[in-house]
């Protein structure tokens, strides 16, 4: 295909051609970044939690009359739940991975440090690791005899008489790697406030309740403390995935039977917890998909409009070319090549712009750098859209009969 006639025609329509190029460039830049953002959200939504998600259900209760002994109360409840058919394991938990409302502590490696090294999600409980199905990488889980009631622990900490408590913890691998890169974490001590706690186990993963930031989402630790019944505590039940609904219903019924005057504030499967946490990301991804579709449609319509105009304008020229022996395919190819040329220039400009927009987003929205793979995605999308949009007008041009050349003067 000869490019020269196309170029010389375009030179006569510089402004219109440039407008089309700019439109394609802008669309290309935004599509690249939007696809990247969608992917980023989807990746965030796939965040692993380290727990056996499809086997867990949560029940949260609010007491009507405050129990005189919240620890006995929680132990009774746990016993009641354990009796329910289908329950494989149960634990009292103070928070759930991706649960939203979180409990965190500042961690230091040295009590004299001016700034804490990191902030970690703090899970309290004994049977928690087993119920959640955490994978132990090194060391051991917390022992039942290490897990003490919260008031005992707090009194010991307040009086400084720490002999009765076992200052041990199980931490995630991500946290261990961050605190002691490349070294073995077992036996090392971290400071939670002024209290030194020894690491006895490392688990593969346990995401935080407030895992908004991918970088710190997996810094969690489990401390041997039994919190007792309370509005922020909930019962996490492990069962077979297919039994979840039945177990949930049966467990709630059993708890209500044990004390009918309680308010059930939450009863859901863990899948629902995860769904809720990523609700906003899902809707934002949906909006971005919609925006991309709308952008491509508008750009396509623009191409259709301009191409139709050009075809109409060059009707006579086309007739002359046809009379001089050009085939329909020649005419079709002419318009297709013209569009390809404009799209290519637009795409090249669009890449530069996409990079600039990404730099801006990196500055203001903590997005990572745009991987190179997204550039061809935008390019192919726009080439395709351009060719599809120009097909109609180009076919109409190809249908112009040679006789047109002789008609109008």
């Amino acid at each position: 295909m000869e490019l020269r006639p196309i170029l010389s025609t375009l030179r006569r329509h510089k402004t219109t051609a440039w407008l089309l190029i700019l439109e394609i460039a802008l669309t290309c830049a935004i599509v690249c970044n939007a696809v990247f953002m969608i992917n980023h959200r989807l990746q965030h939504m796939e965040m692993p939690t380290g727990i056996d998600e499809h086997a867990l259900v949560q029940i949260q209760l609010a007491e009507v009359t405050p129990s005189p002994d919240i620890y006995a109360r929680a132990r009774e409840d746990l016993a009641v739940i354990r009796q329910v058919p289908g329950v494989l394991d149960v634990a009292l938990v103070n928070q759930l991975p991706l649960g939203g409302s979180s409990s965190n502590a500042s961690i230091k490696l040295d009590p004299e440090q001016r700034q804490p090294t990191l902030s970690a999600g703090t899970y309290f409980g004994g049977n928690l690791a087993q119920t959640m199905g955490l994978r132990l990488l090194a060391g051991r889980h917390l022992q039942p005899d290490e897990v003490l009631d919260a008031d005992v622990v707090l009194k010991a900490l307040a009086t400084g008489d720490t002999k009765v408590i076992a200052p041990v913890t199980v931490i995630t691998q991500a946290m261990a790697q961050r605190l002691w890169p490349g070294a073995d974490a077992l036996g090392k001590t971290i400071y939670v406030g002024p209290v030194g706690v020894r690491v006895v186990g490392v688990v593969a993963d346990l995401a935080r309740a407030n895992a908004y930031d991918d970088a710190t989402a997996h810094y969690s630790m489990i401390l041997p403390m039994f919190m007792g019944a309370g509005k922020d505590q909930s019962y996490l039940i492990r069962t077979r995935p297919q039994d979840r609904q039945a177990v949930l219903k049966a467990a709630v019924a059993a708890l209500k039977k044990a004390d009918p005057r309680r308010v059930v504030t939450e009863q859901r499967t863990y899948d629902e917890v995860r769904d809720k946490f990523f609700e906003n990301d899902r809707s934002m991804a949906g909006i971005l998909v919609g925006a991309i579709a709308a952008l491509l449609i508008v750009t396509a319509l623009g191409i259709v409009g301009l191409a139709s105009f050009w075809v109409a304008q060059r009707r006579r020229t086309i007739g002359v070319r046809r009379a001089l022996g050009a085939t329909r395919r020649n005419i079709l190819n002419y318009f297709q090549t013209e569009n390809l040329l404009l799209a290519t220039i637009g795409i090249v400009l669009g890449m530069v712009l996409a990079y600039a927009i990404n730099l801006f987003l990196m500055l203001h929205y903590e997005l990572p750098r745009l991987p190179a793979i997204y550039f061809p995605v935008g390019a192919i999308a726009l080439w395709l859209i351009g060719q599809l949009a120009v097909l109609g007008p180009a076919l109409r041009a190809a249908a112009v009969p040679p006789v047109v050349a002789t008609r109008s003067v």
Partner: protein
Amino acid sequence: MFTYYLDLALRSLKRNKVLTALMVIAIAVGIGASMTTLTVMHLLSGDPVPTRSGTLFYPQVDGNPTPGDFKQPLDVMDYQSAVDLWGAHRADAQTLVVDSPVRLSAPGVNLPTLMPSMLSTTSDFFPMFDVPFRYGSGWSADDDARHARVAVISDDLNHKLFGGRDSVGQVLRLRDTDVRIVGVLRPWRPSPVFYTVAGGRFANGDTADFYGKTQDVFTPFFTGLELNDGNFQQFTCWHMPERPGHLQNSPCAWVRLWVQLGDAGKVAAYKQFLDGYAAQQAALGRIVRPQNTRLRSLMQWLDYNGVVPGDVRLQTWLAFAFLAICLFNMIGLLLAKFLRRSGEIGVRRALGASRGAVFAQCLVEAGLVGLIGGIGGLGLTLLGLWLVRRQPVAYADLAHLDVSMFVATFVTAIAASLLAGVLPAFRASRVAPGLQLKTL
């Protein structure tokens, strides 16, 4: 003249319906997208108390006794600092604020026990924040001092419990305590619920929840603390509290203080008082960073917390980029349309029309496209807002078009299309009459 141009424009638009439709759709879609996001932006970044936000301030002292190089005080205060500063009564008005979930039932109302959120605050809260009452009124400073068993309830709760009638004098049971209703609010939906905003800078832009509904029950501060003891949530603690949920004298930050200061002199004086208090507490050894005091105005505090959700800002950027693309599109189409009429323009020019006249005529045509596009855009904006209302976000129910945004829709649409029309109209007005006449 204008009506003549309008007539010409209509004729021209009718001549090529497809091209006209393309332009109208482009501008309508662009306007629809950008006005939807702009409306949401406008709602979320607005002033929650327009009547007096200029006089509302949020004092902070750093109650965290842990040594360290913390540049900012904690977002909320410890009990002692907050109550000391409140008790000093150095501002025109001041109020303590803390919220907690409370178990609520109403004797004689056949409803299961509810778990609404309760705001424990002091008497100045209602006049200070211009809170509208439907029935009754707030409580007095005397009620604060007596720990009176009184409450004010929201319009929502009044509808739920009492079907919207005057419930002043009715009794509510909050946990195990009976309180008497002294006031019922009108629908009140400050966005965001500014008086409990804190910690926004740690939320990674995920701040939509600041825009939820207000609390349903309001009780005097000390009354609330007594009746719901054990159910309070700390903002943060520097040690584990001895009894979770019971936070007076605990090593925790959990109480907010708001003050009203009428003029700049009072603001300066209050800042001085705040610094003085911090220095005095530092001398007593209770505070280790007395320099860490702040007195931000309401809007500064909202800014500092980055209350407008990151997603909403991103959507606004996206929508405006989208509008830009639609405009490029329209410029190209208008240019094609006008230049196609070069012959006609040539004749008009030869018959004596000035360049200005041709330019004006073309702009009228562009403006007309903008007007029609604006009507379409309005429809799409309403559709967009309907979609926003179906999103699972706390501010969903707020997403409605107000008069200013309604007008803005048309102004933007016409301005955008006129802007898009300038270049094509200019090019059209430069058409040389002689050249065009020759080719006819």
